[in-house]
């Protein structure tokens, strides 16, 4: 059991399952508005980062590749947030 948690991929998988449940729940309660959007983007960012670092194994990759992939997450999240912010005005 303890050896299961020693593998970062196993830990990432468990967090991804729980985080998916959280996004689903926000949808079920019909969460809307700035707070909800920030929460959903934060969850997506955490999930994306786990996939990049622990599944794609970029944790031990040259910094440039980590920055490219994590930068993509920030770019996409930023554009989505910008569009939602404009729509709320």
């Amino acid at each position, binding site marked *: 059991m303890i050896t299961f948690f020693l593998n970062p991929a196993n830990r990432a998988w468990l967090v991804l399952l729980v985080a998916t449940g959280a996004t689903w729940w926000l949808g079920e309660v019909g969460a809307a508005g700035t707070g909800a959007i920030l929460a959903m983007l934060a969850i997506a960012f955490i999930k994306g980062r786990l*996939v990049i670092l622990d599944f794609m194994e970029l944790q031990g990759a040259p910094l440039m590749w980590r920055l490219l992939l994590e930068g993509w997450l920030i770019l996409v999240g930023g554009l989505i947030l910008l569009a939602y912010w404009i729509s709320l005005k």
Partner: protein
Amino acid sequence: MTAITAALPAEAPAAKRLPGYLAVWAFILAEMLLFAMLFASYAFARVDNVEMFNLYQQTLDRNAGAINTLLLVTGSWFVVLAVQAAHRDDSRAASRHIAFGFLCGGGFLAVKVFEYATKFGEGIFFSTSTFYRFYFSLTFFHFMHVILGMVVLAILWVKTRQGAYGSHDAHGLESGAVYWHMVDLLWIVLFPLVYVMR
């Protein structure tokens, strides 16, 4: 030089390396940029049609979207375990984990086909509204990527059964695995964006 080596801790971390082939990473980055543009198009198209997007979004099957996230995340996890097994020279475990990953992909396709069939049954098509045009084009484009990812996994399954990868060389396996993780990563953004955010 000897002094520096002696000063290093007993277990120096391995040199930084990029898993898989460089060309595959270039291809993946191009695909991700394309999807970034599609995601941004959706978000900005919504700005002028907030009420319509919110109304039609409620007709989507959020449970199916969430189940599909779980399937892709789990499929990705199996494929990481396959790469780890290959590095331990355990080809049997590697091929078994790839088969599980492939099955998760198959589950995703089945749920998506069910979702599309329900929509078509309700008389909802690509041309019904701007929202559905985005819903069908984004999800179908991603669907095609799941299929391509499964083709890659099928090839990797055959090759791992032949013992093609091991501690000596796993670049091919790592490259296919990274592509499969990208399919997962894209859905992690697509699901909240199209199915949940309002």
